[in-house]
């Protein structure tokens, strides 16, 4: 394979900015779906489309890695970050899909709170990956993602505990909502993983 000597580093930055945008949009649509269940104005297909777009972006990043001699950061860091942001979108899509799969009849307040945290975390992630060119505001964004992940942990723990406070909660409710709470928690944790990868890039390149 011939590697191009003319650097296309700008395209890496553009792809990561696009990845951040897609993750944030997927989280926003999912939050709306959770608020509006059982009749969300946004079909799951739109979230799925974003998940496919995220996959395309990852392919774009790996395509560049395979053809570019010069990269703005370590190749391993670039591929790790691309996968990490894609994971966020995958987990968001999975949580959103559970609303249809489990025929959720009404939201739970704790899940709506998790969605709020997820949207904020994705907003900060978008801010972070969009600032890879000059690192402006990146440290604050990474710290905020970590804070939101901690908050997400507390909300998830309380949410799951609430299912077990009364022995007579429907088993179906417990199964559904434990899965949903855990899926949203995975998505928030994935934001922190991606943020951590951004942090590593900053450490090596600042």
């Amino acid at each position, binding site marked *: 394979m011939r590697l191009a000597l003319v650097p296309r580093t700008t395209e890496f930055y553009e792809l990561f900015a696009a990845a951040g945008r897609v993750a944030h949009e997927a989280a926003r649509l999912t939050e709306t779906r959770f608020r509006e269940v*059982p009749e969300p104005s946004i079909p799951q297909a739109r979230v799925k489309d974003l998940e496919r777009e995220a996959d395309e972006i990852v392919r774009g990043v790996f395509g560049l890695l395979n053809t570019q001699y010069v990269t703005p950061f370590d190749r391993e860091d670039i591929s790790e970050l691309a996968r990490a942001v894609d994971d966020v979108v995958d987990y968001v899509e999975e949580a959103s899909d559970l609303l249809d799969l489990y025929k959720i*009849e*009404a*939201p*739970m*307040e*704790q899940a709506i709170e998790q969605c709020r945290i997820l949207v904020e975390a994705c907003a900060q992630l978008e801010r972070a990956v969009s600032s890879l060119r000059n690192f402006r505001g990146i440290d604050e964004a990474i710290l905020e993602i970590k804070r939101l992940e901690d908050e997400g942990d507390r909300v998830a723990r309380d*949410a799951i505990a*609430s*299912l077990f*406070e*009364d*022995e*007579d*909660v*429907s088993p179906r*409710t*417990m199964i559904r*909502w434990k899965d949903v709470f855990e899926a949203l928690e995975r998505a928030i944790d994935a934001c922190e993983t991606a943020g951590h990868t951004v942090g590593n890039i900053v450490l090596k390149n600042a």
Partner: protein
Amino acid sequence: MQVLLLAETDDPAAGGLAQRLRDAGHGVQIASAIGPAELAARSGRLDAAIFDALSGWTVGELRRRLPDVLVVAWLREHSDAQVGELFSAGADDVLHRGMGAREQVARVAALAERAPRAGIAVAFGPLGVDPERGEATWHGRRLPLTQRERDVLHALAEARGATLRRELLYRRVWGYAMARGDRAVDVNVKRLRDKLAIEVGAPISIETEPGVGYRLVVAEAGVTAL
């Protein structure tokens, strides 16, 4: 109505109250422990629990252990402050020795109207809800409701204008305890409200008691909102 009176079994005051209620046609058991009552509550064979406020039981504990059962506190001596606290804690009613015997029995009889009667058709003014036939009607005209909406309407109609706590409404419609944060009641009440506004309009409404639950108001039923 099947009533559990939680008090010392050799307490003459408890015995007197129990006898008055039996004379009025209610089934009454006096017990100092709750054990078998929990099973009766879960299988729908217990309608109300009257507990001696000095017995150590609390409204919250009884609500948790006897789901879907009306909880009535019994005070040996009347105290405004205690009555207020018991209602704030969620008691369905408070009896005290300052009440005459007839008033005590009448209050329990009024509670019997609110005891759940799953599957029984209920009429509330021009509103009729018949679970067995799967229909809700207004002046005989069928209302296009889903089964869930009908079940919610049935539970509210049974309460005849009294506020039904969210948790109790959930229990009656879904048959299980409501998990904290579950908004199924709110979502279904909203949908029902919207449909009733279109199908019937002003004569019927569902009012919210913030932080507590909902009550059905039917203008032609002659029952005013509490």
